[in-house]
């Protein structure tokens, strides 16, 4: 899966900046997308392109359980978030709702990847290729359950009884 990076070099990007509380009453996915990252980067909506990835630090998506957060990012075109770590509800919302891939990266990838870099994520090899810089990094493999839910296309398509 290939895409370009939008980098926010900071920790604790929380759901209040991903989609501010005033929009919690909005349930139109396209409208939510227009407010994605509004609390941190008012230019996000104009610069994000279909297929982009976001790169960030520790504890991405901390704060509220609002599914509006992965929805707003996903409907902005974001296909994956690469972060040093994720907050738990954002992580499971992203996977169970099949909105985007939460990819846990290590410090090498975090330091090595820059804004605008073209990246190729190969989940089958747990590998991230930086096409722009010709570097390769490891991604943390998904746990078994997460891998299966992603492969199924979300929690509702996953059949636990068939394990």
């Amino acid at each position, binding site marked *: 899966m290939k895409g370009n990076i939008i980098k926010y070099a900071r920790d*604790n990007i*929380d759901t*209040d*900046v991903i989609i*501010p*509380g*005033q929009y*919690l*009453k*909005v*349930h139109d*996915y396209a409208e939510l997308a227009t407010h994605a990252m509004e*609390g*941190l980067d008012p230019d996000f909506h104009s610069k994000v392109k279909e297929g982009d990835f976001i790169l960030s630090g*520790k*504890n991405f998506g*901390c*704060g*509220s*359980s*609002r*599914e*509006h957060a*992965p929805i707003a990012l996903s409907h902005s075109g974001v296909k994956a978030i690469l972060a040093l*770590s994720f*907050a*738990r*509800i954002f992580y*499971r*919302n992203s996977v*169970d*709702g099949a909105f985007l891939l939460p990819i846990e990266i290590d410090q090498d990838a975090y330091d090595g990847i820059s804004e605008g870099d073209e990246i190729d994520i190969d989940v089958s090899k747990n590998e991230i290729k930086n096409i722009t810089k010709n570097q390769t990094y490891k991604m943390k493999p998904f*746990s*078994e*359950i997460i891998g299966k839910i992603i492969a199924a296309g*979300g*929690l*509702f398509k996953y059949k*636990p009884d068939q394990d």
Partner: protein
Amino acid sequence: MNIVEKILARASGKSSVAPDDVVFADVDKVMMHDVSGPGVLKVFDKLKKQGIAVDKLWDPTKVWVAEDHFVPSADKLSAENIVKLSNFTKNYGIEKHFKYGMGQYGICHTLSHEQAMVMPGDVYVGGDSHTNTTGALGAFAVGLGHTDIAYVLLNGNIWFKVPETYYFKLNGKLPDHVMAKDLILKIIGEIGNDGGAYRTMQFGGSGIDDMSVESRLTLCNMTTEAGAKNGIVEPDQKVVDYLSAKGATNFNLVNGDADAEYSKIFEFESAEMEPIIAKPFSPDNTCVVGEAPSVELDKSYIGSCTGAKYEDLEAAAKVLKGRKVKIRTEILPAAISIYQRAMENGLLKIFLDAGVTVGPPTCGACCGAHMGVLAKDEICISTTNRNFPGRMGHVESQTYLASPMVAAASAVTGKITDPRDLI
């Protein structure tokens, strides 16, 4: 096994579970509100298009609904969401719907204990991150998103990775004027915003035994701010008495085994505790009130599931009695039952005499939704739970998190104030 492992083993039909096991647990109670409910409806619409049946819930008697975030309806869109929610509960036969303007209603997490909606030993999931609150009753209480809640509503179960447990031991009774809010801010300050991530945070020790159920609710509420999956306190006689007084008697206490294992134990000495605040823009950015920056506050907000339970209002009243507020101050009891007691016991008079605006139960400004949101550059001291940029309004407003006593004392002086300086 510890208490969480025992609850999850029972709920998943296993003789034992251990951290990192993945289980599908049967859910005992599920909650949604005026934000997550319409979100779940969107998921149902999506499922319908995929040919998945959504015409019947697994068990409507185990579902309850609160109206709290944008109520009383903040605008046309939030009013429409309330109508959607009402139609939802009507169409699916959900009887426990707490509607504003119709008797008991309030913030969902407050109703969970005020109305005894959740019992010790329950697996309880809610469409809100502060569902953790109710772990203070000895339940496994976890916040989930819309898709997961939709899954629970249709299937009655959901997957969990059994969390490892951090045990926080409090030795001794908290000093006067130091509240549970101070303790949980201290803990978050020490372990960080992700210090409890994916884990259970369990509280125990003589200081917790001594605490009221309401104080324990404050502790469990803000485990969310440390990233925890859930917070929990082993249920004791206080929990039994608390629930019995509300007419709930049909429950079994689940407690951890004597040889229960914890992945880490943290100890705190009550005697060393002081009032603490979290400065902008993170709940882990803490300092003792004595070292707080000397800022001119614009507002004090005493509200939310975290800081507007009856005990919180009582603490604020102790400070505000016979005094006048110097800055804009709002007090919003977290549920009608609390509002009633505050009226009957004279707290409302103390607040109104002090110059406070008393509002209806609502999540309101806590999440920047409506009713008292902050303007650019406004600085607020608040009994709520988060202070990320824009949390309570404009992205360039600032929120200091504090206990109800500190928020009340600061309302009187206009500066961040240790309540011990006034009382």
